[in-house]
């Protein structure tokens, strides 16, 4: 059986565990435990539990379920066509129609069932048929039956199933209404429709209510996707625009799969649309015409690319909130399209076959289509789909028999006592787990440790979120102590290691591609790596599956009290800095990330990482990657809507009045849209042809009015695009120059624009040279025009970057008070006393005389007044020149000395250029490049690229600049090496390499470049921290706590000895729905009174079913000398205590903040608990309450529907 895939099919294997561990709660069973929508699967999994209890074997269950769904898809399409034909002897036409739906090449992929929501492939025909029967008979039994079915298949009516839901049901119901009114000429019973709607909402309430609440909660992911521009346009429209050109109308007409290489047999499918057209040719029935109309509507939605007008309208639909769910539009619409295709085809086939005089022709045609569909579906019929090999594996089958040893391992994991997380090794990239089968084959999908074992685990590098790079770095640097401390901080107590060679060695790339660059290459070295980590082995199952434990000294329990709460100005990826300062990981670190927190929260310390806030970082940060990337354009310049886009952009540019990096990036992004437009539509763009320079055009050209722009397509010229680009850049330079030009920040901004222009220049040259429908002469003209434009802009941005010999730190914004300044010892150790000087407030300091704390030098600093000017400066007199000792390599004529080089290019040689390796190249490091040059009127370019040592490692170009100078000129630049590079090279070469380009240059001089005073130095980035201790000197007493896990959404915490304020930490993903409740105190609001009444009813109801709360304590785990204790229990979904917190008071509501990048923390003061020192708190995820309420309503509605259905039979 194949149990893998994106959402896995583990529910077939062990539905009971899947229900209890991964379905009943609103918290994700894996990684950090984010809010989760898996509870919409509850009825479906419950349904599978019933089936599983009948059939026992999961293999039989899968076969039965898939068999029913495949035959259901055929059967209900067949029945629907038969109903629409409504004539005798139409069964063969309906059967062929049914087969078109079930076996067409477009649907075959869906039968892999990789997502739970793929049940819609058979569910849609089933519900369509039931509703068709209802509209034909007005018998409410069909509606009630439909509602019951939607309950069991509720995932298909949840957020996850929304695209299929909205692509099928609105149009199908419209079809049925029109069919009833227009063709059957029957009345629609409105009361039935209203009743159906109410019952549907009632029965789906358990997942609809929480989702509707999320949709209207600002800051929620679903809300963002539906309502924000980012969700609608960046995620929605951009994705749509990217794939729309690849979806072909012809392929859809022939019901073939899109974006695939198709075999020769697929050509046979060209006969299908012929049947439809011939059928319509002879058609006399409105039912078929109605089907044809809906077929056309769906063809437009499933294709997108039918005329530019439709494409523009389709794009316009993305302004509707929620429409971005159709960004992958073809996949979302194709099944509905195929269903209506089948309905139309079946009817057409009936007409065509009835036109024959002799029956034999009908039989032959039926046999022909039957043969095509059967041959096409043969791999599915004979069971090849589950026997496919896992993607990118070395012949490992997707179907497997679960290894009994693995089942033992899973059982053991379930019994692990600590409420802690698991790290699953070998770690994958995306969070998949690979598990080998007993007789070959493997499972690849979401972690079984989470979904069946009930332990939140990290199976993939991506699941580590903000910590993923840090974990890789620590492993790469073999910093295993720091790694353990970090794992402990993430609440990881256990390591599950699968030593099966199949699951690692037979997967050379996916799902281990990224992690394998750092983690061991094979299982043999993996074992060695785990030994080096020195974890305590607590379980070994046949030397195949191992469970290890991390020592308590590193481990942070699920709920704890922070020893130190710190406000840190840097991101969580820099957590090693505070960890190395404090040498403890029991901290609550708050990183401001745009979410303000309440001023009542008092942190023990403020920690400011000043590494990147020295004067020189204004320059180095200017080469950071833009936040916006290169633009993607959707509207061409001839579109009637284009002038409106221009207007919108103009308004946006006017709003960008500041000169910070984000605003500059946005301006550059908007300017670069002109280049992106020329890249996409250059071949259809006109050329004026007589513009002398863009500056001249700037004087002459005025923005056209809206009408002129629409009618005369005034923007559709190469020169106008150049000009609009030029104006945007020119304007932003003006704004920058208004600031103090001596300021390094201004220089940094100029440098950022200059870098972007160098990149844009290269892109535009390439676009011009490759542009279709443009003659060589026009290309020469455009090249010359653009070169002059870029040269002119470059002239405005010229300045020499100063060498990194002085780093000034500015702490003027600090409040008055006592501070400690820390300087990283590792940095200081790289220099001798002569090379490194420290000056603070005009006083010189010697590093030998400074205090030391852990890995840091420490200086005390008092700021007496907020307005006090501070100066803190590091002077670095001499950084070594990294190219001083390496030799030039060249294919051309080279003359070199100690401080100069002269390269003469021989045009006959293919290989060309001058290259030097840079000494001591380090990853993620900034370098300063400077030299003087003369190119004798020819254009050269300088390139710096780096790579990892090794023959086959990938080369990254990190700098590419054009050099052009008739006289000696200075060049300065900054570069940042790539993440893994340890070898860097600089190369000078003749630019252009193109006949057109060469024609633009002076032909008189030889092609020659001279270089002197060449230097590349590393830019120092010392780690410097400023620390302020806020708590009084007297030692604080932290309370002790004992916590009990009721279930993953509820914890009872007993606090003792809480005399001072403290910070309580819950190591689960931060979510404002996690609340801290005082169960002894009632809230006096109407809502709370109502909640208490509902809670009491719930409690009484639960008691009737004998679900009394019983003490299930299985022991106590002690941490930090008994200051934190965990009572070991089993999870309880529902008992009489479930409703105890309903209507009770929430405490520290506004003092809840994200800690350590992901966890929940509450700052609790004695006044929050009315001065009590010993008390009990409940931490609970309130969305779970909504689930309880919704489930109650859904189950109630379910019984109402069953009763109503029974009544219809009873009446009869």
């Amino acid at each position, binding site marked *: 059986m194949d149990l893998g895939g994106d959402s896995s099919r583990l529910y077939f294997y062990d539905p009971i565990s899947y229900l209890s561990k991964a379905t009943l709660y609103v918290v994700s069973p894996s990684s950090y435990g984010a809010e989760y929508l898996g509870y919409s699967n509850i009825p479906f999994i419950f349904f599978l539990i019933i089936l599983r209890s009948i059939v026992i074997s999961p293999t039989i269950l899968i076969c039965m379920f898939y068999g029913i769904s495949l035959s259901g898809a055929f059967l209900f399409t067949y029945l629907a066509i038969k109903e629409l034909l409504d004539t005798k002897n139409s069964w063969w036409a309906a059967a062929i129609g049914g087969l078109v739906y079930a076996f067409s090449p477009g649907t075959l992929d869906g039968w892999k069932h990789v997502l739970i929501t793929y049940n819609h492939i058979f569910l849609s025909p089933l519900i369509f048929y039931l509703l068709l029967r209802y509209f034909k008979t007005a018998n409410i039994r069909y509606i009630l039956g439909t509602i019951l079915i939607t309950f069991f298949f509720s995932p298909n009516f949840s957020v996850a199933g929304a695209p299929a839901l909205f692509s099928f049901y609105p149009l199908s119901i419209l079809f049925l209404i029109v069919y009833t009114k227009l063709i059957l000429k029957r009345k629609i019973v409105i009361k039935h429709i209203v009743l159906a709607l109410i019952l549907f909402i009632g029965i789906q309430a358990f997942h609809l209510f929480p989702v509707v609440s999320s949709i209207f909660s600002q800051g929620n992911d679903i809300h963002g996707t539906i309502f924000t521009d980012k969700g609608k346009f960046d995620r929605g429209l951009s994705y749509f625009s990217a794939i729309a050109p690849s979806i*072909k*109308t012809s392929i859809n007409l022939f019901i073939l799969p899109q974006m695939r290489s198709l075999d020769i047999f697929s050509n046979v499918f060209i006969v299908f649309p012929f049947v439809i057209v011939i059928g319509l040719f002879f058609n006399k029935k409105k039912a078929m015409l109605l089907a044809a109309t809906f077929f056309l509507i769906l063809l437009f939605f499933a294709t997108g690319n039918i*005329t530019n007008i439709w494409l523009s309208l389709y794009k316009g639909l993305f302004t509707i909130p929620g429409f971005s769910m159709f960004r992958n539009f073809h996949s979302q619409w194709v099944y509905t399209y195929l269903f209506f295709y089948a309905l139309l085809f079946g009817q057409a086939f009936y007409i065509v076959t009835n036109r024959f005089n002799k029956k034999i022709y009908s039989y032959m045609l039926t046999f022909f289509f039957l043969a095509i569909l059967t041959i096409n579906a043969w791999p599915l019929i004979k069971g090849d789909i589950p026997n496919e090999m896992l993607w990118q594996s070395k012949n490992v089958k997707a179907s497997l028999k679960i290894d009994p040893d693995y089942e033992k391992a899973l059982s053991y994991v379930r019994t692990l006592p600590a409420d802690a997380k698991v790290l699953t090794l070998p770690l994958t990239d995306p969070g998949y787990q690979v598990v080998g089968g007993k007789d070959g084959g493997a499972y690849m999908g979401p972690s079984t440790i989470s979904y069946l074992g009930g332990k939140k685990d990290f199976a993939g590098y991506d699941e580590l979120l903000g910590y993923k790079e840090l974990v890789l770095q620590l492993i790469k640097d073999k910093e295993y102590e720091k790694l353990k401390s970090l794992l402990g901080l993430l609440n990881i107590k256990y390591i599950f290691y699968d030593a099966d060679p199949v699951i690692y060695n037979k997967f050379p790339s996916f799902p281990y591609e990224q992690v394998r660059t750092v983690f061991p290459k094979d299982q043999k070295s993996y074992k060695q790596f785990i030994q080096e980590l020195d974890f305590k082995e607590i379980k070994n199952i046949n030397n195949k599956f191992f469970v290890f434990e991390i020592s308590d000294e590193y481990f942070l329990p699920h709920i704890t009290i922070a020893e130190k709460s710190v406000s840190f100005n840097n991101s969580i990826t820099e957590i090693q800095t505070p960890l190395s300062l404090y040498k403890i990981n029991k901290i609550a670190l708050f990183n401001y990330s745009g979410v303000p927190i309440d001023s009542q929260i008092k942190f023990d310390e403020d920690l400011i990482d000043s590494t990147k806030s020295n004067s020189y970082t204004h320059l180095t940060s200017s080469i950071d990657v833009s936040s916006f990337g290169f633009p993607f354009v959707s509207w061409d310049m001839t579109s009637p809507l284009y002038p409106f886009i221009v207007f919108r952009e103009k308004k946006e540019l006017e709003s960008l009045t500041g000169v910070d990096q984000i605003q500059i990036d946005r301006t550059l992004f908007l300017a670069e849209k002109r280049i992106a437009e020329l890249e996409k539509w250059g071949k259809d763009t006109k050329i004026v042809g007589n513009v002398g320079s863009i500056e001249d055009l700037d004087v002459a050209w005025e923005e056209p009015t809206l009408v002129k722009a629409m009618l005369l397509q005034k923007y559709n010229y190469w020169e106008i695009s150049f000009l609009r680009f030029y104006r945007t850049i020119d304007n932003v330079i003006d704004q920058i120059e208004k600031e103090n030009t001596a300021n390094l920040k201004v220089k940094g901004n100029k440098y950022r624009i200059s870098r972007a222009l160098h990149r844009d220049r290269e892109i535009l040259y390439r676009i011009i040279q490759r542009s279709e429908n443009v003659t060589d002469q026009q290309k020469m003209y455009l090249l010359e025009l653009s070169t002059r434009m870029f040269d002119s802009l470059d002239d405005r941005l010229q300045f020499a970057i100063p060498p990194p010999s002085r780093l000034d730190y500015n702490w003027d914004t600090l409040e008055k008070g006592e501070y400690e300044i820390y300087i990283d010892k590792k940095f200081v150790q790289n220099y001798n006393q002569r090379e490194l000087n420290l000056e603070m407030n005009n006083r010189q300091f010697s590093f030998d005389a400074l205090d030391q704390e852990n890995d840091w030098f420490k200086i005390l600093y008092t700021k007496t007044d907020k307005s006090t000017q501070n100066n803190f400066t590091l002077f670095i007199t001499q950084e070594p020149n990294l190219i001083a000792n390496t030799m030039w390599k060249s294919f051309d004529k080279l003359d070199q000395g100690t401080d100069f080089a002269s390269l003469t290019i021989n045009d006959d040689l293919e290989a060309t250029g001058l290259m030097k390796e840079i000494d001591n190249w380090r990853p993620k490091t900034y370098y300063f490049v400077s030299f003087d040059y003369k190119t004798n009127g020819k254009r050269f370019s300088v390139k710096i690229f780096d790579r990892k040592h090794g023959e086959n490692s990938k080369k990254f170009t990190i700098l590419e600049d054009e050099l052009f100078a008739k006289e000696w000129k200075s060049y300065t630049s900054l570069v940042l090496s790539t993440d893994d590079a340890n070898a860097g090279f600089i190369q000078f070469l003749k630019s252009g390499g193109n006949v057109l380009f060469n024609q633009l240059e002076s032909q008189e001089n030889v092609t020659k470049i001279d270089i002197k005073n060449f230097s590349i130095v590393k830019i120092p980035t010392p780690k410097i921290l400023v620390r302020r201790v806020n708590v009084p000197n007297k030692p604080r007493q932290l309370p002790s706590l004992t916590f009990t896990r009721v279930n993953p959404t509820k914890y009872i915490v007993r606090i003792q000895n809480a005399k001072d304020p403290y910070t309580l930490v819950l190591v689960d993903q931060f979510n404002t729905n996690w609340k801290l409740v005082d169960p002894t105190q009632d809230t006096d609001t109407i809502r709370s009174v109502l909640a208490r009444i509902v809670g009491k009813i719930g409690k009484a109801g639960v008691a009737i079913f004998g679900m009394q709360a019983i003490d299930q304590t299985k022991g106590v785990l002690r941490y930090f000398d008994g200051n934190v204790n965990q009572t070991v229990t089993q999870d309880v979904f529902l008992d009489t205590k479930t409703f105890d917190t309903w209507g009770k008071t929430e405490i520290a509501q506004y003092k809840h903040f994200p800690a350590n990048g992901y966890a929940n923390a509450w700052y609790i003061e004695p006044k929050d608990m009315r001065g009590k020192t010993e008390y009990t708190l409940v931490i609970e995820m309130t969305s779970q309450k909504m689930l309880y309420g919704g489930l109650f309503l859904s189950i109630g509605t379910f019984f109402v529907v069953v009763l109503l259905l029974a009544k219809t039979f009873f009446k009869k």
Partner: protein
Amino acid sequence: MKKALKSFLQENKKTVLTLFVLGILEEIFFRFTSSDLLTFSALLLYILFVKLYKLKSTFTFLLCLILLLVVSIDYVFTGASVSTEKAAVWFVLFFIVGVVQQWKE
């Protein structure tokens, strides 16, 4: 003038319609760019012909069959090429006209 044009068109129905079809084929195979202006103008012209010649939906579906034949042959030899796609779009547009005509009939 208007009447003269009308009578001229009516007298030369076969020639006009043949030229129209040939025009579409020229657009499919000999033009490398597609223009909505051209496409919808041609469609509008066809709708005028429908009115003028009182063409039935069967005629439009016949035209659809020709276009479908073009799509199919082109698809077999060139795959989903630019010309195949242009022919497919023409087919869809005429199919819409045919369906609308049949509703009216």
